[in-house]
């Protein structure tokens, strides 16, 4: 509405200027249409990637299952060891691949990243849609773009960290459970209060080893859930203690 009002107040462009303005408007519309197409294309690409990944894991599982059944059947009916060994090897390779690549974790991670990306993009486009104050449009657009880039950067970093942290289980120990026990998610009430929690003293490496999470997504969920309360708690503690000596 405010844009319309401002347009009404602006002097009408004349002749050549109006032609240039119309040309510019057509160009801007073309860019917007192309952007819209890109958004749809990116969305399709993300969905397609997810479905392809899902289908490949499913195919791997089916190959493993079928080859194991065939290996058993061949072992009982066919005296030739070569065919049984081939099918058995195929089955073992498929199942080992499934356990080593942990598809459920990967799919879960992908779905969370997809939701994150959707939320970020929705926020960005919604903000663009509601910008209407021409006096602050530069700053608003700059803010929206910076926020979008920061969100995407954080997402990329988290994704990289997730890949870096991924460690296949060794054969000597069982695969760590992906879903941590309930006590790994302390409720906000369990967060140490500002009165009781001492500020951490500068010290070297962490020494104790309580139950750890094994997944970067668990880390992200914890961060989202707890960080605001813990930040407030630290700030309250600093305020309460007062200004230290320099």
């Amino acid at each position, binding site marked *: 509405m405010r844009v319309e009002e401002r347009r009404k107040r602006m002097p009408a462009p004349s002749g050549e200027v109006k032609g240039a303005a119309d040309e510019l408007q057509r160009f801007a519309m073309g860019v917007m249409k192309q952007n819209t197409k890109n958004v749809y294309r990116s969305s399709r690409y993300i969905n397609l990637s997810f479905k392809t990944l899902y289908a490949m894991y499913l195919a791997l599982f089916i190959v493993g299952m079928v080859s194991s059944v065939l290996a058993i059947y061949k072992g009982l009916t066919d005296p030739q060891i070569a065919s049984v060994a081939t099918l058995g090897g195929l089955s073992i390779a498929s199942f080992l691949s499934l356990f080593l690549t942990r598809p459920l974790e990967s799919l879960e991670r992908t779905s969370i990243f997809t939701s994150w990306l959707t939320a970020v993009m929705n926020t960005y486009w919604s903000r663009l849609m509601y910008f209407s104050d021409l006096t602050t449009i530069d700053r608003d657009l700059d803010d929206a773009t910076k926020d979008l880039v920061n969100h995407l950067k954080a997402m990329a970093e*988290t994704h990289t960290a997730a890949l870096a*942290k991924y460690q296949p289980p060794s054969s000597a120990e069982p695969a760590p459970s992906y879903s941590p026990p309930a006590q790994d998610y302390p409720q906000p009430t369990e967060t140490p209060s500002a009165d009781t929690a001492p500020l951490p003293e*500068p010290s070297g490496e*962490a020494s104790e080893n*309580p139950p750890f999470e094994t997944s970067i997504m668990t880390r992200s969920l914890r961060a989202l859930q707890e*960080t605001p309360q813990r930040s407030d708690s630290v700030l309250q503690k600093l305020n309460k203690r007062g200004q230290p000596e320099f």
Partner: protein
Amino acid sequence: MPVTMRAIKMMNIEAPIVLKIAAEKFPQAIVGKIWRYLSDRTPNGDAGRFQTDVDKIELGAPAALDGKLFLVEGVVLHQNDNPPTSYEVMVTVQQGNFILHQEVPQEQGSGRISNQDMTFQYRFTLVK
């Protein structure tokens, strides 16, 4: 470890001094406060606070900050990382868009973090 204080020379322009504190290399949550002192180390109040999503703090105009001392007191919040993850807190002192100084605090400004919050400190003074 001896306590160090960095003397940072301001430019001869009117742009305000801005402090940026961020864990740039690896996504870690940080929080903390900036304390201001007079040149004789008398406490002069709180100059601002920072968090992961609010990492820029405007300290004020250069004329008012000449000779003032600042103590950055922050905490890197742990996320129970196993194996421990690295963290590196970068303190950047800017005047407007010009970077005057950039440094990782010597006192616990970098390292590895697992299941304990890590406290870092950084001291500096601004001079004309």
